[in-house]
């Protein structure tokens, strides 16, 4: 028997654009939203948009990971549920557990599901049980010499290059590739220590390296009544260091393959007793063979592309499911129409290895127009703190055809006026005019095989350049270029 609840207030345990995104859906359902913030993050957008905001500590970063402080904030403000967003505590099973213990609903899957799917080894077993192919891989490697022996046996069977992954890794982190025996043996220690540093767990395993693959994922919704549906595919192949740069819905696969992949995703979700929104990630080879990669037990950054092509508000569904409602649409009602492309406009310098470029946003004039969705975390005059991720605004465009979506993306990127910080816009502007991208011909090697995309000229506005001359004329008392 499912217990139905009616939330009147929830707490959003996150920051930036995703916090604002969740607040928006909550408000549309008539639910008040409380948010938390660190002192170093008090000027951020989500604090302004929430109905209430609680400072949970001086920051930076550590207080957003403080379960106790967040639970206290929820209790103090009378929130009945907590939405974790993505990152921070979103995939930490201790968090939903603490919520349950405090009498709060967790808007996401139960702790056991997070724990199982968070372990790549358990997740692979679940997938295999559901009949989905998995990439050949080892069990968790033993420590010391035995681990080295296991690694060499695996490498001799499947050949190099070999991927080493952290058991608790995710979001593209904790992955390394080794091309020969020497680098593999040397790298095992390093991978263990990186895994320990990043995830508090030094367990690692090996995986066969696939070539010319597409990264495809399936958006899932599951309710407490055993209903599981998929909202179609996404293509997240354009990645840099295993981190997604551009995401597209649908993935652009032929219908038969797409249906097969979606059905597999539903099966693995069912096998894991899943609840709420989640994403099943897969790798697809050029010949259509696909392999299970992992399940992300949270809302994802790129969920917007699915929302745009299906018209379904995924966060709203999460909120309703958490209240004990069934999914509000049936599988038959899900239709993917056209194409959506999402990218992250970050305060980063792509030419400088995408290094974060925090600072004062002197001018922020966003682009807009038909088929454009913005999930923003900035405003004009906002000082982007150096402590958090550098995303300024998430841009999602829609087009009835792929061509229209690309053209719209190009037009929209051109329409942004951001002054004060370097952004990823010039890099994306190169991509949208690149022939392979225009032909939707890309796989996970795209960024590396198209390194020329970084050779862009950062175009300063003409009037700003001219202002430089005006400053020269004034400083010298005459125009030094007339003599």
């Amino acid at each position, binding site marked *: 028997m499912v217990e139905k609840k009616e939330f009147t207030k929830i707490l959003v345990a996150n920051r930036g654009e995703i916090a604002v995104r969740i607040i928006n859906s909550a408000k549309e359902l008539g639910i008040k939203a409380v948010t938390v913030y660190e002192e170093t993050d008090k000027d951020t957008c989500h604090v302004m948009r929430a109905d209430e905001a609680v400072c949970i500590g001086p920051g930076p970063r550590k207080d957003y990971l403080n379960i106790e402080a967040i639970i206290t904030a929820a209790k103090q403000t009378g929130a009945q549920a907590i939405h974790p967003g993505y990152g921070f505590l979103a995939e930490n099973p201790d968090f939903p557990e603490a919520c349950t213990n405090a009498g709060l609903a967790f808007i996401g899957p139960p702790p056991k599901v997070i724990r199982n799917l968070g372990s790549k080894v358990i997740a692979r077993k679940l997938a295999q049980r559901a009949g989905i192919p998995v990439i050949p891989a080892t069990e968790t490697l033993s420590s010391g010499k035995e681990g080295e022996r296991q690694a060499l046996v695996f490498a001799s069977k499947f050949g190099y290059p070999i991927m080493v992954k952290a058991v608790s890794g995710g979001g593209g982190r904790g992955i390394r590739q080794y091309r020969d025996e020497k680098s593999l043996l040397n790298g095992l220690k390093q991978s263990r220590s990186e895994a320990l540093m990043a995830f508090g767990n030094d367990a690692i395993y090996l995986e066969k390296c696939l070539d010319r693959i597409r990264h495809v994922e399936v958006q899932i919704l599951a309710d407490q009544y055993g209903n599981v549906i998929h909202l179609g595919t996404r293509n997240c192949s354009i990645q840099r260091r295993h981190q997604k740069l551009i995401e597209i819905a649908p993935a652009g696969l032929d219908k038969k393959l797409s249906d097969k992949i979606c059905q597999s995703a539903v099966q693995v979700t069912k096998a894991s007793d899943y609840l709420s929104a989640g994403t099943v990630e897969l790798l697809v080879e050029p010949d259509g063979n696909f392999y299970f990669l992992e399940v992300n037990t949270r809302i994802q950054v790129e969920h917007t592309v699915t929302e745009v092509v299906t018209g379904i508000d995924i966060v709203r569904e999460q909120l309703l499911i958490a209240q004990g409602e069934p999914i509000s649409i049936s599988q038959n009602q899900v239709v993917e129409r056209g194409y959506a492309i999402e990218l992250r406009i970050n305060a980063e310098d792509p030419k400088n290895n995408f290094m974060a470029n925090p600072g004062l946003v*002197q*001018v922020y004039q966003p682009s807009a127009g038909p088929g454009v969705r913005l999930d923003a975390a900035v405003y004009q005059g906002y000082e982007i703190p150096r402590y958090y991720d550098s995303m300024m605004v998430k841009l999602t465009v829609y087009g009835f055809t792929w061509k229209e979506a690309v053209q719209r993306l190009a037009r929209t990127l051109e329409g942004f006026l951001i*002054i004060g910080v370097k952004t990823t816009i010039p890099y994306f502007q190169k991509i949208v005019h690149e022939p392979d991208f225009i032909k939707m011909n890309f796989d996970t090697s795209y960024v590396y095989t198209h390194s020329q995309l970084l050779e862009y*000229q950062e175009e*300063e506005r*003409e*009037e*700003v*350049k*001219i*202002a*430089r*001359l*005006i*400053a*020269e*004329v*004034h*400083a*010298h*008392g*005459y*125009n030094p*270029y*007339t003599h």
Partner: protein
Amino acid sequence: MSQRITTGMNAMETLEILQDADGYYLCNNERDVSQSDFKNRLMPMTTVRVAPFREAAGFFSVEASGGASVHVDLMRKQVSPFERLRIARQTMPRTLLQIACRGANLFGYRHYPENVIRLAVKKFSDYVNVWRVYDFLNHVPNMIPIFEEVQRAKRILMPSICFSTGKEHTDAYYVQKVKEILGVTGPNVIISIKNHSGLGTPKRISDLVVAIQSAYPDIILHYHGCNTDGNDVGRMAAAIIAGVKICDVSDHGYGSVYGQAPALSLIQMLEDYGKKAIGMNIEALVKTSDILRRELKIYEPFESPFRGHDPRVAHYKLTGGAAGSTFEQADKDGFLERMPEIFDEMARIQVELGNWWSSTPGSQILWSTAVNNVLFGRYKKPSLDLKNLLLGRYGPLPFYEPDEWIYEKVLEYQRTDGKKWRQILAEEGGLIKPSAVNLEQKRRQLESELKSSVSDEQLVLYLLHPFDAVSFFKFEAKYGKTWVLLPDVWFRRGGFKTGERITFRDEGGKPHYIEFISCQLEGNTALTTLLVDHTLHKISVEL
């Protein structure tokens, strides 16, 4: 026929209309006027300001580029010569654009390789309708690659004969030159009489026109004169009455001293002779000058230190285009008071060196030789260009050789190998014909310098003026297209006042402003705060 000529007509149609014209046409030679009085500093926005009226005035053409202006665009105005032509084309879409070209020297002072010449002519022809081509020694072979490229581009070719005075400069000589040119080009050209120094009486010019037309009755003639002596209206009138179809004129608002004579003066004079200026709109002509008169004060600091007509130019024959800059140089180097001596010396050396034409680069050779002779002693400090001239590197001298003592002084100057002038002449003399350059290699060289891809136009500028082109490209990358600034901002002295707002329109016509807020000095750095289209910018300048 009395039909205005416009860009909608092709070269052959244009020539046919000119041939049948019952009247005469005028070419506005802004390029030559501006280099005379303003040392080539006339900024694009001045041209833009008057462009609608020039377009309405109905000129046959506007000479918008060529000569030294290509180099000066890069050096002094920080604008691409191609861009300046593009601006002229946009703002005067119906008016033919004309360019002056110095034969194998193109827009420079020494011969360029033939493949460079051909590429440059091809690229400039994207904007230019009329090519006025000359060689300062009237050596026709120096002009052939240009003739060929202009005709290949289906543009109007205007080969010139440089004109001067003296016993060698007979009608027969010039008719023979026209014959040589037509032998290369064929009849579908306009022959220009290039009277760059404004020499000869109206009668002399009339006689020459008659002589050429007697030999070639169907040929279309153009006259390019200069008003240094104040009498070019007379020469132009005589030329037109004798049969010339096009004359180079100026806007009277410019002052019309060292450049061409005013259009309106000529039009008014010829009315009494029953000659009509075809296509001309007097109201638009007057309006142009009204604007230019007001604009002149901006260029005041660059005016020649000596202004006024000088009828003695008939003696020293200095080309009008160089008059202003020679006075400026004399003033800067402290020998302005010795100009009468220098002019006398110019007259003397012209006779000594062969009585050829005082047109670029010959005019520079004559000027620098005269100055050095006066300041340091006769032929005691000959220039490299004079040496090249005597070695025949520009082409053969047309009438006679200088005396041997001049060869000796010039060719043996600073020689350390002990060679005598005859040996030097024998070993090193002859027309210079630089070998072809590897264009793709040059392009790669420039790309590596600029760290970006290079357009054909950029390549051409680099081939013509390597150092100044690179400086300009770097300037433009840093400061943008500053030609959009009004001249009073570009030439500003003493800086800007707090609250002063500089307004301009960008290339696309969008308005912008830069408001001056403040400037603080911190050691050797000036930190300037400006409001640029509502956005605050702090810019530091090293002093």
